[in-house]
């Protein structure tokens, strides 16, 4: 097994989720459901949404668990003892993320896993908010990645 830097490994993992997320976003935007009934009666649209939300969660987890520490390590930040919020605040100062956005995406992700019974219009509004968040997360990841490019440890040879 080739020894890769944690940053290259984190980017490789995030790239896979990001690519599938982008393609699901395109598929959704090509034929979005207009309401919950339309969504729930169209198995193709429902599958696209499931894929989109799954990759939204996976990309966010990959960034939080791997890319956050790997980015701080690549910048020689002494982050090991810091709680998550301090790591996020530091990355915001360095221009990698917006912490308010990040925390809102966490809430949206956590909500996908656990729901109270809600009126259909509220459920659909929550789905639309999750799709908008997925689009914003994908864009934030592209910007994050572009900012990492100059770092030698982001070696892009993992395929």
């Amino acid at each position: 097994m080739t020894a890769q830097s944690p940053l290259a490994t984190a980017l490789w993992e995030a790239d896979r989720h990001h690519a599938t997320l982008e393609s699901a976003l395109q598929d959704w935007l090509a034929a979005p459901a207009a309401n919950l009934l339309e969504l729930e009666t169209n198995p193709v649209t429902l599958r696209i949404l499931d894929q989109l939300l799954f990759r939204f969660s996976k990309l966010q987890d990959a960034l939080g668990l791997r890319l956050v520490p790997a980015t701080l390590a690549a910048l020689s930040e002494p982050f090991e003892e810091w709680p998550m919020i301090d790591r996020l605040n530091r990355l915001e100062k360095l221009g990698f993320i917006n912490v308010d956005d990040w925390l809102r995406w966490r809430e949206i992700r956590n909500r996908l896993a656990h729901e109270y019974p809600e009126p259909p219009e509220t459920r659909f509004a929550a789905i639309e908010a999750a799709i908008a968040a997925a689009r914003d997360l994908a864009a934030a990841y592209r910007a994050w990645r572009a900012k990492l490019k100059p770092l030698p440890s982001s070696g892009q040879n993992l395929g």
Partner: protein
Amino acid sequence: MRLTSREIVAIEQAARETFAPRSTIRLFGSRLDDARRGGDIDLIVEPPAPLTPHELVERRTRFIARLYRLLGERRIDVLIVPAGLPDDRPVIQAARRDGRLLTKVPE
């Protein structure tokens, strides 16, 4: 009631930053029971006027994200129901009946 004073202060602050004046925030669910441990923080928010579905989702996300910032990420569930509007969902009825007032957003 099992909330620390730090948690209550955070809930007051996040509510002020998110919801309209005169909105009430009540605690319900397992955190009312002193004999239990841990568990989600379940809150019911009753704003004085109805919100559109889009506004409701946006406010709920903003409120919980503020709490994540103030308290760290944890399990928080928030129901938002306009004050005085009948709602026959059992969870809403129980929350309205048993919920304990934590704060009211000042005018």
